[in-house]
């Protein structure tokens, strides 16, 4: 198995794990993390695809950089929204404690 293929498989797996987490987990913070996992998976796939040629494909690297920017801002927004929601529902500024899955 070539390293690129390995990275491809790993990336796809991470993406799938993230997707599963998003659909199956109820805790909001964990879902935010799940979405981030999905993102990382896709980026890994993209980078692995870029590494197939040498020099590595610049287009894909540009895509990953753009994607990262999007992912960071989206995550920031999601975390802020989750904490605002938690603050509103519990009266404390903390995000719900991990483990205490809300239904």
């Amino acid at each position, binding site marked *: 198995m070539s390293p690129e293929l390995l990275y491809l498989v790993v990336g796809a797996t991470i993406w799938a794990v993230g997707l599963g987490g*998003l659909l199956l987990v109820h805790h909001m913070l964990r879902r935010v993390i799940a*979405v981030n996992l999905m993102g990382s998976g896709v980026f890994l796939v993209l980078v692995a695809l870029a590494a197939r040629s040498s020099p590595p494909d610049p*287009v894909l690297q540009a895509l990953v950089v*753009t*994607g990262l920017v999007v992912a960071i801002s989206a995550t920031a927004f999601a975390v802020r929204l989750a904490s605002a929601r938690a603050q509103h529902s519990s009266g404390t500024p903390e995000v719900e404690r991990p483990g205490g899955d809300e239904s």
Partner: protein
Amino acid sequence: MNYALASLAIPFTVALLTLLLQRRSEANPIVPAITVLATAVSLVFAGLALETQAVSGAVSHLNVGGWDSPLAIRLRLTPLKALLLGFVALIHLLTGLYAWRAKPKIARDYWPLSALLHTSLAALILSADIFNLYVTLELLSLSAVALVCLSGPKAYTPALYYLLLSLGASLCYLMGVAVIYGQYGVLDMTVLAGIMEADHSTRFALLLMTAGLMLKGALWPLHLWLPEAHTYAPTPVSALLSGLVVKGPLFILWQLWNNLAPEALAREMGPLFAAGGVVALVSGGWSAFRAPFIKTLVAYSTVAQLGYALMGLGLLLFLQERIYAVALWLFVLAHGLAKVSMFLAAGEMQTLLGSKRVTAMRGATQTIPITMSAFAIAGISLIGMPPTGGFLAKWSLLEPLFTQANHWPWASGVLLGTFVSAAYVFRAIALGFYQAPMSREPRHFDRVSQWLALLPALLVGLMAFAGQDLIAWMAGVTQT
């Protein structure tokens, strides 16, 4: 192309400008004026773009910043795209006017955010490659979610669900993009259109992208997030979300399957889309019929009506006849206008009647006749009775089905859709005809905002009188 670019750049500038203008002060009164005015200018530019494009029938390209093909941000303008640009600007203008006038005052952040939403929709429409579409999709979702949040803490939960599902959906889409690029090494849609093959990895990529887009577009069965989000958003935002935002992903889906996908795959997928559309019509309609709140009713009706669009798409792919593309985009236009009117009317009712419940509409024909007319006319368009735009769209979907005997069964989907829509629309209208409880006078009575709610309904209500020209023109517009 320059006109289209102007139509995109104006809301973007306004978004930045309004952010700066209201940094400190509480609510700057000129912000709404600027935004509405700019939207009007953007509409004019979109109209100019449409005129030049539709007259020449041409397709233009632009590489932003002068970069070359793979790295550049490529924009592409076709007549249909110009039409949609104009439609987006028009809906923004109508809701903007209402939001300006609305009482209680809408949160001041509405203005920069709606301008941002306008920008991202315009960018989505103009984008020529599948990765830029991902970026615009994300922008669209982020601004839409932020707009939902404007109605305060009660909207946080649905907004967060909307955001997370939307992000997940974007990443499904992005995975599909990665697979396609891995196979073909191209992102540009015009290039891809010629070289895609009907093999397994292409099919897989298309399915991933489709799943993501269907989730974002609230197409059945991935619509579950929509009713909550649309119900809890402030009224003008609900109108924007239902009228426009769900149509963005639908437009990408259309490009994906109509332009990119090999015909064999498209034919395979067509019946699935069409069947999904029929189920959406029935299940969404049923939920609307059972809905306890006015806005929930309207939101579920969006789920149902998107079923018509999905049916149009499915039949287009399956039967490969242009007329279904006309039907699909007529549905989008008619539904957009009708839904704006309906949500604005629903919002007016909530304020005037002091209750969110459908049952509060008792006697509304007597207490708030103009608002009730807006709701009723828009509803009649959703049912598809002549001479509304909904009728025109339904007719262009229905009539060609009867040209061949083996397509007749699909007509029963339209039949069911009509019955179900009639049920939920008339359920609400009938309540309006109860004798009004005379004691409850409306709290305040702003005629202008009621007429603003009625305006889109009147537009869509008389749309079919231009039917022949409109269908012929749309047939030309949807060619490319």
